[in-house]
């Protein structure tokens, strides 16, 4: 009898704790104004969608705190200080540009609050310490994946390229990192890049005519140009004017609607870039997300939204495994994320707290990019 009573108490106790959702405070800092605001808006749309879905369930009640990091490192640092010291959040999620995440990460590390970046891809971001992690792949992977794609014979869905020229944004760590990775893999596997096959420009350059004259004379099969969409849009437009027929390749810095308007529909068709996500990916989980996103926001989900969505869900998954909402326990659980099925692919954090996951290669059409292939790490 006594035993039965005890069992009853235990059962009801369990039932009781199952109905009371656990509270978790998540602080999000993103660029809601400034140059990167379109990336910030997109990421935030995914974050909000995930929070709503989780709060509709029974297990967790997320209290969301948001800060605008204004697209610069100083405000990023201030935003994280405020989230940690004033709002007393359990976890921080953010931000887009690697240099801004780098400015904020040491603060989170010192305060022993887990910080997870949804979209910063520079290799150095997670070097700050064990409290800093990310759910996106790193730049080396993008560079090497594009090199392999360029080399792969046409019959196997690649470009069958033998020669390449690198066009590098010398004001960006991101661009240099991707280029170095591309060069290494491309040349190691039989591709050829001349000694003077590295051409530099800087952000805000508008006149690429002399740079393109150089490329035209070299007649490479592909041009690897891992810059940001503003300069690349211009460059591809001018390349078309110069009659350059080489395919241009790039990374996720291309991924913005402005790429297509700046280049113009005649020039932009038929180039390739790597990205985190494609709304055309046929994976059922992706299609389910795309459908729900469209129902909520009335448009196709961009890659940043998918990463924002996944970042919140990985945090909650970690909280579930940790069994309690406590910063250090959360950090450990986040860092041991393994095989999490996100909409941006299966996410496993490696020893350096970088996500080991596939990327997609997109092909540019007149006004949008379409899914070409998926590359596993």
């Amino acid at each position: 009898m006594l035993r039965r009573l005890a069992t009853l108490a235990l059962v009801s106790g369990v039932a009781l704790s199952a109905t009371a959702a656990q509270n978790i405070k998540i602080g999000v800092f993103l660029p809601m104004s400034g140059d990167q605001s379109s990336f910030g808006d997109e990421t935030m749309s995914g974050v909000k969608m995930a929070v709503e879905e989780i709060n509709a369930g029974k297990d967790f009640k997320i209290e969301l705190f948001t800060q605008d990091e204004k697209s610069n490192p100083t405000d990023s640092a201030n935003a994280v200080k405020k989230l940690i010291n004033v709002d007393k959040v359990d976890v921080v999620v953010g931000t887009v540009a690697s240099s801004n995440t780098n400015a904020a990460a040491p603060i989170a590390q010192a305060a022993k609050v887990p910080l997870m970046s949804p979209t910063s891809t520079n290799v150095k971001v997670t070097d700050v310490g064990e409290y800093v992690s990310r759910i996106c792949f790193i730049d080396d992977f993008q560079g090497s994946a594009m090199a392999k794609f360029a080399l792969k014979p046409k019959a196997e869905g690649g470009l069958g390229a033998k020669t390449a020229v690198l066009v590098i944004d010398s004001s960006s760590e991101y661009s240099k990192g991707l280029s170095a990775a591309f060069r290494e893999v491309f040349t190691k596997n039989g591709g050829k890049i001349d000694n003077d096959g590295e051409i530099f420009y800087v952000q805000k350059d508008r006149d690429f005519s002399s740079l393109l004259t150089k490329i035209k004379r070299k007649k490479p099969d592909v041009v690897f140009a891992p810059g940001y969409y503003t300069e690349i849009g211009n460059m591809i437009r001018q390349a078309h004017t110069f009659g350059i027929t080489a395919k241009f390749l790039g990374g996720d810095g291309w991924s913005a609607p402005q790429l297509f308007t700046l280049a113009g529909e005649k020039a932009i068709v038929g180039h390739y870039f790597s990205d985190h996500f494609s709304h055309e990916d046929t994976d059922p989980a992706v299609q389910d997300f795309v459908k729900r996103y469209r129902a909520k926001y009335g448009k196709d989900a961009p890659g940043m939204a998918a990463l924002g969505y996944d970042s919140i869900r990985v945090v909650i998954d970690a909280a579930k495994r940790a069994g309690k909402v406590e910063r250090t326990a959360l950090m450990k659980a986040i860092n041991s994320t393994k095989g999490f099925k996100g909409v941006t692919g299966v996410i496993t954090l490696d020893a350096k707290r970088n996500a080991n996951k596939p990327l997609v290669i997109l092909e540019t059409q007149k006004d949008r990019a379409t899914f070409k292939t998926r590359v596993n790490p």
Partner: protein
Amino acid sequence: MSSIDPGELLQYLINGLALGSIYALIALGYTMVYGILKLINFAHGEFYMAGGIFGVLAIGTLGLHPALGVLAVLVACGALAMLVERLAYRPLRNKNRIAPLITALGVSIVLMEGFRVVFGAQPRSFPQLFENTVYDLGEWFPSLEGVIVQQTQIVIFLVMLVLMSALSYIVLKTKMGRAMRALSFDFDASRLMGVPIDRVIAFTFFLGASLAGIAGILVGMYFNNVEPYMGQLAGLKAFTAAVLGGIGVIPGAVLGALALGVCESLVVGYGQSSYRDAIAFGILILMLTTRPWGLLGKPQREKV
């Protein structure tokens, strides 16, 4: 680099002349204002930016006929410059020369950030006013196959030449021009002779800003990209060009600008893009230390 290919060199020259023509249109305004007021109007690059953005609004958003649109941009840029002159420079005209210079820097920031707040920081594409036909010189000279000239480049160059001539005509042959020249010689004497100083200065600003506005439209068509920060660097380059040619001298501004454009193009072609701005400003420093009156200017002895 073993030998220099003549076709390649020619292509760099063509690219450089187009870029230089744009600098020239901006440099003309710099040089005019300096010639008369001895004021380096650091906000001048912003009128060029305004020209690009007004162009997108007038021709792209409002859908005006291109000719009408260009005219509207000219008037809008000119009016903006007159407003700036009235509010920011005129009250300081009789103060020392540092006050207006600092004010000019402030005006530049206000205009730049103002445009960013109203129109956003995202770069916008520019409506195409005509088909940008590309001519391959190989059609006429087989040895030059692959060297291309774009219609936009030709238009930019011709527009620059026409406007420079028109400006020279205004300054040298009209009554307003005579008043401008009088002011540049002696302010007080001109006032005593009955020259309407305020009107002449306002007109100078109007003229200079309209030229910069045209440059903004041309660059919009050439690069298909306008944004609120584009005036910053272009303004500094044009200033360099004006100093190079001899600030205050109209043909000097054009010569300096073309030289600068070609120089930059060659640096990118035979060197590295990263050094382009360094070379441009290196020229400025070299010129200021060795020949501060510029290529076409005359040395002036400091009056004691």
